[in-house]
């Protein structure tokens, strides 16, 4: 494996690590808080919302938006670090 290949495989590993962390959060805010733990969370209130219900109909969507923008920022940084950015 030459130097360039080693760099690219390091880049790919960092990319996969970012994906795993973000997808874990993706799972937690939707399947976790919105479905699996919904009854538990409904004991708590956020405004007039039961918390689990809020996650299922509002919070998960805000979480998804946050995740994509965090991904954009992190990947742009990673691309520059490895010199694979496009400009």
């Amino acid at each position, binding site marked *: 494996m030459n130097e360039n290949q080693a760099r*690219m495989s390091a880049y790919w590993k960092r990319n996969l690590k970012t994906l795993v962390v973000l997808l874990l959060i993706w799972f937690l805010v*939707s399947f976790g808080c919105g479905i699996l733990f919904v009854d538990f969370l409904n004991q708590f209130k956020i405004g007039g919302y039961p918390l689990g219900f809020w996650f299922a*109909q509002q919070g998960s969507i805000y979480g998804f938006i946050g995740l994509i923008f965090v991904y954009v920022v992190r990947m742009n940084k990673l691309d520059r670090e490895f010199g*694979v950015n*496009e400009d």
Partner: protein
Amino acid sequence: MDILTWTYILVGLSFTVYIGIAIWSRAGSTKEFYVAGGGVSPLANGMATAADWMSAASFISMAGLIAFAGYDGSVYLMGWTGGYVLLALLLAPYLRKFGKFTVPDFVGDRYYSNKARVVAVICALFISFTYVAGQMRGVGIVFSRYLEIEIEYGVLIGMAIVFFYAVLGGMKGITYTQVAQFCVLIFAYMVPAIFISMQLTGNPVPQLGLGGNLADGTPLLEKLDGVMTELGFAAYTAGRKGMGDMLMITLALMVGTAGLPHVIVRFFTVPKVKDARLSAGYALVFIAILYTTAPAVAAFGIYNAIQSTSNQNISELPAWVQNWQKTNLIQIQDKNGDGKVQYLANPETNELNIDKDIMVLASPEIAELPNWVVGLVAAGAMAAALSTAAGLLLVISTSVSRDLVKNFNPGISEKKELLIARIAAAGAVVLAGYFGVNPPGFVAEVVAFAFGLAAASFFPVIILGIFSTKINKEGAITGMIAGLVFTIGYILYFKFLHPELNSSAHWWWGISPEGIGSIGMLLNFACCYLVSLFTPAPPQQVQDLIQEIRIPKGAGKAQEH
């Protein structure tokens, strides 16, 4: 001015804008026709994706679905937005780097096989046709309700408009019309929602109003739970579906969203890989404006509907109830003859039937808003239906002209290819119109098909095509076919062959046909992996291609070759 005049003016005005944009952004080359020349800004693409994605069903029916399903309706909210995270993280940037024009292009090249390409084309055509028939029907319904035109003529007018800008403008025309359509539809959705939220809770932001208090100080959701249980329904914020089924339906909708070809192809139109990522973020923001408002519209709608009808004298019902009774979307039958409306969970004694579409369609009247708002909602519903129809028609025409004709006759000139693409688009419009006028009796059921099929066919082979270097053509073809056959079989069995068995007692593992795409997807993954273990690995040039699409640098514009 009366409602009808306002509707004609606003719908007419919006159509003029769409046609104007189509003439201005006419496609001159195949590249402009397929991917708008690859030069769309991430923000514009985000808006276009949002309009592409939000269909007549999102605009007209989703709030009503949630209103009657309560917490269970969350599957649509999470399912149809969470898919964008998968798109942004796992698909869009890599497919953009791959740099061709269609999903079958990717499948065919990555799996070095024309058989795989043809299987992918069949999936794309099937998914797109089931979807587009529903859109054309939506256009017809809006015309007939608001403009008092027969559904058939409504569909014809819708066909003429889409024909004009999709056939003439291709992806370039569609993109910029979709930007305009997004603005129309989101404005039309938000205006009544904001006013109703203010009336009920005093808060102009519907997302906060849903968690707000009513005039008497009780939280709206608490009051709604109380009202529903009093009438014999389950509490609004409590679930009725099994947890396993909730998980599976949500997953199938998310993965299905990420696998829909007309959504994926939008990410081929931006200049760079990083634009594809950003654009998915913008798209979700624009989609979320509607998707976080819909549950508020749902709760406000069902609360208002119950308050203004339940135990009221039939002769003193508000004007909007009487108006919509004429269209049969609200039906009242005084079964016990006491002159009042009883809305109850028990179908034997219930006297009120409300169609789910009422929650959005009648919202301006419920809030006693001026007549022009009604016209605006009509224009918005039309924008939602037309923008989705156009995106689907483009997938159909591209599949025919590029994935079939061009691929098997590489010698044809660009001019000829463009002509074939236009003829295919025209043919697709006519066919879609036919299904709009003569809908197969199961339009609602086939939507479950589209998502289940996208989840069970495309998603696994695209993901594995990017993230694994080991999966070969034998694996991918087996996987797609196994996923498809299993999912189609399960849905056919419960929806068409034995609808009487369609209940959780008979479902496998308690999973409804809506959620079975998740299992189809897992089956597809498993087949890809197992078959690839025992068959030769992909050749070196494919290994190089995979390494190449993993790195953003050097994307360039979508290439023609």
